């Protein structure tokens, strides 16, 4: 398991309370920048730098929200989403596909694969957080019945 969890010092009790976000992006700067931001905003952050790591991290950590890049090594983001949505445990994670390909066909494929949102790069952390929190609210409403 090569994906990285950034909050190991916080302990198990804290991890249970904090929402978990998986940032999957092969661009180091992007991954680190979002990880720093969401960590500071109270999230437990897991990172992955390719599609295979993202799938494994989703299975291992079952994050509340996954921010998935499209173009990554091993598996592209859409393949990774399909595999995550086919996994009995990981499929509960909400997924945002974040891509530098602002094309309707890519958006259609992403949504068909199971993505909840489609956003284009560059996406400022504050803007991304609004979408992340909207998806978390949707999950809570669904759980409440």
């Amino acid at each position, binding site marked *: 398991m090569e994906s990285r969890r950034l909050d190991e010092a916080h302990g198990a009790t804290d991890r249970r309370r904090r929402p978990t976000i998986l940032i999957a992006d092969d*661009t*180091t*700067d*992007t991954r680190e*920048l979002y990880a720093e931001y969401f960590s500071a905003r109270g999230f437990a952050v897991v990172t992955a730098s390719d599609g295979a790591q993202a799938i494994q991290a989703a299975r291992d950590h079952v994050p509340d929200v996954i921010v998935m890049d499209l173009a990554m090594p091993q598996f592209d983001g859409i393949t990774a989403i399909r595999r995550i949505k086919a996994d009995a445990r990981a499929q509960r994670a909400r997924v945002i596909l974040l891509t530098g390909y602002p094309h309707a066909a890519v958006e259609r494929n992403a949504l068909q694969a199971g993505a909840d949102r489609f956003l284009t*790069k*560059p996406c400022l*952390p504050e803007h991304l957080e609004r979408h992340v929190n909207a998806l978390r609210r949707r999950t809570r409403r669904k759980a409440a019945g």
Partner: protein
Amino acid sequence: MSPLAQRIADAVHQNQPRPFCFACLAAEEGVREHDVRAVALVLIVRAGLRLVERVCSRCQRPGETLAARKLA
């Protein structure tokens, strides 16, 4: 910051005040649009560039462009 990010930052400063959309900025630099979009975030957050809605001075289409931060 990656070499590509530095190159795009330099291009934005050199093009100033003419805004280029991501597709045209990529074409000018001979790289792919999604690579420019991928490095844009770090340029905005860490290198002082801004994301602004403008008409591209190359293709004349309105849309998001990168611009140097205004000086006070």
